[in-house]
């Protein structure tokens, strides 16, 4: 395809990407916006398909007006030909064009390879600048019974409710750690589920150490109070410093064991009790989704919540010239921060001065995010919930015993070696679900996402790539290929 490159390709139409795309188009750039989803909004502003005829999609959202305004701007820019919006396009790699051949050029043109639609048709987009707004996915810490049907991600339950108007069950325990739990419990209860308890592993007193950051964010406190009062109204109990340490059931979840935790997240003996339920929505905060960025060589930094985020400068630039990023990729911080960062990046890419109000709000919201991240960082004692036969890797069904054996008997000292010895993290999801747990069991810190491809790609598309790209294909077959292939 020899179409002329866009000024900017934005990957992800969540709060950051959407805000960036419409701002950049407003500043005169020609923008291509690619998104894996069918509708703009990302995970945060997920909403029912038009066919579901929802009259009040905002009932499931906080800050819907901010989205509605940007969606309207997107449609206007699209109609005027300033934005090419490509929904249902999953970008799986980004490569500099003519790598090597045009080394004289300071800023290369980028080629984005995507698969489009359910048929996974190969698509190529070229652009002079790229903004990565790939967001985050949920962090999961395994526990006995977490693979039972009815145990679902807290964000997953929220996503399915927002887009499909469905509930995983009628009586749902919400568990894990992080402010998302309150929002999820509020939505599930408002949609008619009974929520016997929100089980939060952290102590909210952890916030007290960060009083200044909290006080400079009255909006965020009000948001918390909204969730809190919604929970009260629905009679939901909030148990802090507690965890679901086991889910019970045969074909599906029927109850959970909840125990009180010490400050390291070790269950306290004698505190376990059972709560009957037919669904568990569980999650321990979010993990920045970085594989496109790390594939490009963008520098990363550790976050206070024990995840790894991109190293970004004041203008949202990554360490790779020509590549910008905004939103959760730079550290988990929520939708408001993502909107501000997207707009900052757009100004920066357009070569304009960044409005001071955006810089101020980013500083303020980042401080709040850091306070929250520190408060909900998983304590080391959580690995005590695992039994020897608990599957840690859901895809490859690798139990904790095999991972411990790799570490203790075979001397694996990092997650990568554990992976090679046990296949944990080598399945379809490429370690998105088990990565943090495997790293903890290996006794190492979290590593940034490194996956050669950000989604499974049909072999025929890989075969069509030039020999020098992507640069990091593993030896042998990528594990995400259908397992029956030789």
């Amino acid at each position, binding site marked *: 395809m020899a179409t002329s490159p866009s000024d900017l390709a934005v990957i992800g139409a969540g709060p950051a990407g959407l805000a960036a795309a419409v701002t950049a188009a407003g500043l005169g750039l020609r923008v291509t916006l690619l998104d*894996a989803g069918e509708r703009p909004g990302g995970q945060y502003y997920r909403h029912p398909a038009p066919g579901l*005829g929802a009259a009040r999609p905002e009932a499931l959202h906080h800050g819907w007006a901010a989205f509605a305004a940007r969606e309207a701007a997107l449609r206007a820019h699209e109609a005027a030909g300033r934005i090419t919006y490509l929904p249902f396009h999953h970008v799986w790699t980004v490569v500099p064009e003519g790598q090597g051949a045009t080394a004289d050029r300071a800023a290369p043109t980028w080629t984005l390879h995507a698969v489009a639609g359910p048929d996974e048709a190969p698509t190529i987009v070229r652009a002079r600048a790229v903004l990565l707004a790939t967001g985050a996915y949920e962090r999961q810490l395994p526990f006995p019974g977490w693979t039972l*049907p009815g145990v679902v991600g807290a964000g997953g339950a929220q996503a*399915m409710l927002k887009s499909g*108007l469905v509930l995983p069950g009628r009586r749902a325990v919400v568990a894990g750690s992080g402010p998302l739990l309150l929002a999820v419990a509020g939505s599930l209860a408002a*949609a008619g589920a009974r929520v016997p308890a929100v089980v939060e592993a952290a102590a909210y007193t952890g916030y007290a150490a960060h009083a200044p950051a909290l006080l400079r964010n009255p909006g965020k406190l009000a948001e918390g109070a909204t969730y809190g009062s919604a929970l009260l109204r629905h009679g939901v109990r909030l148990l802090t410093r507690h965890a679901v340490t086991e889910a019970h059931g045969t074909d599906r979840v029927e109850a959970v064991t909840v125990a009180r935790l010490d400050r390291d997240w070790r269950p306290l003996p004698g505190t376990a009790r059972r709560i009957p339920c037919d669904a568990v929505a569980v999650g321990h905060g979010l993990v920045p989704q970085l594989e496109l960025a790390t594939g490009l060589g963008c520098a990363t930094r550790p976050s206070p919540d024990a995840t790894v985020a991109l190293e970004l400068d004041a203008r949202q630039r990554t360490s790779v010239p020509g590549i910008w990023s905004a939103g959760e990729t730079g550290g988990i911080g929520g939708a408001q921060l993502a909107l501000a960062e997207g707009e900052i990046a757009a100004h920066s890419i357009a070569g304009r001065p960044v409005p001071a109000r955006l810089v101020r709000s980013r500083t303020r919201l980042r401080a709040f995010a850091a306070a929250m991240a520190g408060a909900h960082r998983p304590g080391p004692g959580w690995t005590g919930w695992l039994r020897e036969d608990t599957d840690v890797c859901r895809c490859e069904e690798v139990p904790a015993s095999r991972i411990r054996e790799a570490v203790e008997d075979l001397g694996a000292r990092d997650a990568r070696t554990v992976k090679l010895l046990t296949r944990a993290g080598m399945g379809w999801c490429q370690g998105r679900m088990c990565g943090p747990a495997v790293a903890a069991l290996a006794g190492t810190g979290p590593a940034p996402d490194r996956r050669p491809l950000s989604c499974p790609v049909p072999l025929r598309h890989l075969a069509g790539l030039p020999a020098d790209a992507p640069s990091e294909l593993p030896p042998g077959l990528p594990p995400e290929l259908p397992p029956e292939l030789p």
Partner: protein
Amino acid sequence: MSEATRGRRRSPRDLVGGTPTETWSLRFDDRELPAQTGQSIAAVLWSAGILAWRTTRETATPRGAFCGIGSCYDCLVTVNGRPNQRACLVPARPGDHVTTQEGTGHGDLAV
């Protein structure tokens, strides 16, 4: 909440109001499930109270949707004979036949 919901359990639909433009039935194994335009296959199955629609390769244990956003691949299902489709992402379409997926979904090709 509203008058419509008094006296019975609220539902997600009560919360957002409105009515679906179209309802039809989706074939899942030998059952017909009510489906609405715009729902993913996983949403149709959850609506019918079905939480598991595949069994794992190693231990043949049941699984369904977990992450709900296309990252975990736990919701793999066979749609119109095509295995390994993520039910949480694939929109349900009239005429679709969804079948429980066992193992790799390629049992017929196993050597």
